[in-house]
């Protein structure tokens, strides 16, 4: 589904966030991106939905070049991808309902479908009671969950989640992970950048570890850190 070939990303100020990264992500897989702060995890995900374009190399999504794509096509790429942004990116002047409904209006969903689907996803992330409040009236974890709800509402082909449990308590984090697994089971590809050691170690999925913009580890049933002896 996603192919990156010798991708290098240097930001205009000279920081090389990704350095010669080649990776291939199968449709329907569940992938953890791990690595220290500043390793390039977010940058890697941003290349997929073309928030950034690579300095060198190729990014393909479903066989189509993302970096050579024309500007007009970009919105249609993004509609196939649900993103949980590390900084949430909620529209400050819209309620929780309207924030999620906006993602549906963009794809011209019917009013009926919006009325049915938005409460459903809010229920899934445990925010049924916060339908009509504005983002600044939510706690950090609640904002994060709104962002998760928005990412899944259109049932995209791919979900990119950047640190989706950073502001959640362990119980809530577990619930969100269960939700992600459920969505993945239905065929959606999931790419998740995370620092949550416990979660990664428990789930035993493919782990891609970045460090200084390079892939330092890529294991099919990996753990958060390099295995030293048996898994705990």
């Amino acid at each position, binding site marked *: 589904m996603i192919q990156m070939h010798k991708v290098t990303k240097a930001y205009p100020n000279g920081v090389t966030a990704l350095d010669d990264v080649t990776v291939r992500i199968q449709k329907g897989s569940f992938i953890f991106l791990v690595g220290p702060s500043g390793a390039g995890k977010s940058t890697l995900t941003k290349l997929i939905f073309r928030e950034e374009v690579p300095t060198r190399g190729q990014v393909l999504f479903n066989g189509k070049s993302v970096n050579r794509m024309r500007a007009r096509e970009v919105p249609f790429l*993004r509609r196939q991808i649900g993103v949980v942004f590390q900084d949430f990116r909620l*529209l400050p002047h819209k309620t929780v309902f309207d924030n999620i409904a906006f993602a549906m209006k*963009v794809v011209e969903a019917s009013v009926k479908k919006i009325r049915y689907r938005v409460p459903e996803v809010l229920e899934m992330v445990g925010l049924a009671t916060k339908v009509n409040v504005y983002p600044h009236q939510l706690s950090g974890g609640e904002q994060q969950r709104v962002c998760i709800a928005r990412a899944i509402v259109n049932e995209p082909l791919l979900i990119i989640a950047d640190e989706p449990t950073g502001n959640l308590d362990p119980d809530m984090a577990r619930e969100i992970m269960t939700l992600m697994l459920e969505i993945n089971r239905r065929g959606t590809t999931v790419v998740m950048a995370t620092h949550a050691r416990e979660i990664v170690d428990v789930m035993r999925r493919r782990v891609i570890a970045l460090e200084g913009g390079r892939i330092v580890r890529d294991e099919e049933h990996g753990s958060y850190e390099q295995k030293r002896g048996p898994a705990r």
Partner: protein
Amino acid sequence: MKFRTLGYFFGEAFRSLGKNSWLSIASIATVAISLLILGSSVMMVLNSQYWVQTLASDLEIAVIMDVDTPAGQVKMVGDKLRNHNLVSEVTFVPKAEALTEMRQKMGDRGDYFRALGDQNPFPDLFRVKAKDPRDMAVLAGEFQGYQRVERVLYGQGVAENLLNLSYWVRIGGLVVMGLMGGAAVFLIATTIRLTVYARRQEVGIMKSVGATNWFIRWPFLLEGMFLGFFGSLVAVSLLFAAYAVACHYIQTALPFVAVRTDPAFLWQIFEVLAAAGVAIGAAGSMISLRKYLHV
């Protein structure tokens, strides 16, 4: 694009108008001020042109007969003038009347004409109006050739001067209108640019969840157009109120100045300003959005 999306666009535009109420008011006021300036200069130009036209059409050619022309020949010339197809009106001023008129014109000092006793040194003359004031020079030349015409006077250049003035008023007016129109677009573009700037983050978020440029643009565009339209309504109301007062004042104080008050004229002004308002709003929005859509 589906119909419901259209509904969304209008809904968003109105919600934003309501939510940023003071911002909306500020924008409307800006549009209104700009259009008020624009509108008053349009009205001034149109009116001064109208006035010059009216003045010009009041201008006349004086055809002065030889002092001793017999009445028969005077009548012949009169008929010839009246039948000329470029002439709209001919008034005959006989000798006697000319003397009286002269005395009046001289005012107090006219008393000294008493010294003349019963002599009347004045000739018969015709006051001739042309259908089109611009033909006056040609007509004057032609009349000069008529029999027993001593001389032809037509304001000694006043007509040309007035027509010239009318030309310059029009040019000057266009320049002023152009400048004011430019200033208006600039002010509104600035205002809308700032509102978009204040919302650049939102635009970025919208793009990152897959909204197309036009999906983002339409609500802003409609908002700009509504702001422009409301602004033009305010401008037209104020302008017409001020105009009514000004007309009243002018008609009593300066009755010789012609002003236009026909509804067709006012309607035209309204149409022009409303269209200008909407166009300005739309242009302002488009200009402003360009920068922040490349997210």
